[in-house]
């Protein structure tokens, strides 16, 4: 079983995580086409993806850059790198 060597919690098996897809940012001023693209379309080809992984036992989120062809984590991302503001 795959292991993720996470910051803070160390090596944990993948079964303890929920996979929550690619890290994406909603285009807030998008037109209809761009919005539908955000909602439905995905970067499905093999590549390095930034992904959300939720560690159930600790309730902690990890953002990893993972090669979806080789199934290798290349690095962990500081959440600051993915944050965006939402209109109040």
């Amino acid at each position, binding site marked *: 079983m795959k292991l993720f060597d996470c910051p803070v919690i160390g090596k944990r098996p993948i079964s303890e995580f929920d996979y929550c897809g690619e890290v994406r940012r909603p285009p807030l001023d998008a037109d209809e086409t761009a919005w*539908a693209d955000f909602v439905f379309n*995905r970067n499905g080809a093999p590549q390095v993806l930034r992904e959300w992984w939720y560690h159930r036992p600790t309730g902690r989120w990890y953002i990893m850059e993972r090669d979806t062809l080789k199934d290798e984590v290349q690095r962990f991302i500081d959440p600051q790198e993915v944050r965006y503001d939402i209109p109040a």
Partner: protein
Amino acid sequence: MPWRLLKYGLKKTHDEPRFFPAAKPLKSGYDVVIIGGGGHGMACAYYLAKEHGITNVAVLEQGYIGGGNTGRNTTIVRSNYLTPEGVRFYDTSLKLFEDLSDDFDLNIFYSTRGHFTLAHTDSALRTMRWRAEVNKRHGIDSEVVDREFIAREVPYMDLDCAGHSAVQGALYHAPGAVARHDAVAWGYARGAYNRGVEIHQKTRVTEIRTQGDQVVGVQTDRGFISCNRVISMVAGSTPRITEMVGLRTPIEIFPLQACVSEPVKPFMDTIVVSGSLHVYVSQSSRGEMVMGASVDPSVLHSTRSSFDFVEGLTDKMLDLFPFMSRMKVMRQWAGMSDITPDFAPIMGKTPIKGFYLDGGWGTWGFKATPVSGKTMAWTIAHDKTHELIEPFRLSRFADFDLVGEKGAASVGH
């Protein structure tokens, strides 16, 4: 004994004709290039040649014929879908399947078994009724049955599931069937080859060339082919192909795993699926129990197997079939599934002229093999999306007009 066997026995030599062509060079151009030599691609080639007289066709396959999900699925054919468009489409497929052996003069072992989708909760039972009602409306033999009925048909199943999540009823689909998956691809391939289609195995597409928004050719690892009509009929590689023409789709790739037991004497004639336990099983004509579950939880472009899969599957399977604890798992494998947000395929024309798409087949591509080939061949021949597949058009996502199959989301092989 069928007399053809007599012929084999009495002849001194084995002079059967080839199913598929020996490897030969690519031509510089074709009328149609089909990317993907699985069931769908071969079926499309077959119907292009047979029904539309288009034979200057090349099927390009990066591995071997039927080596993708055609050879990795658990061979179930059914048409008890939830939406009218789904029911119509898959029922057309099922009816084509019934005549394929005759059509090919090749026995694909199409075997009607009866298909149970078990409901373990009242909400699952509601969904079963929904599907049954839609099916009946469309003349599909499909009904909600109670525990007594199931106990009669599958007497060795533990309906109480060892005391947790007992079976409350099921959707029973009498026409549910299995077939020899490889033979389906071979039959289509042979039929296409005999009609003049070229089949090129070990030929990988590396680029699709366009001029403006028109497809003009395909670059392969064996050379360039000029061509105005290209169709992608791959599984697990659809995003890689669509990326070549700059087309964005919702498809993501998740592995789907399966396993077989050691062969035992056949005892199980039906197909049993449990949405709540996420398992399904049938017994092959070799005597192996063919078992599967839902797709893996994360995106991966790999056919590696995982141990958690086989642990989880067997654990759940024993709730239904306790005696299977004394059987053995012989082999496990995985395929890569194109998953779409509404659990429906993406078919038809695309914004790129001359580029056609047949993808997003998730975990249900095998049962659609004949109808996909037939409707896509029509679509290519007429350059117009066939009406049966209109609901599966790529533009439905831009229009927020998804197919309602997701309404009954559950494992559904």
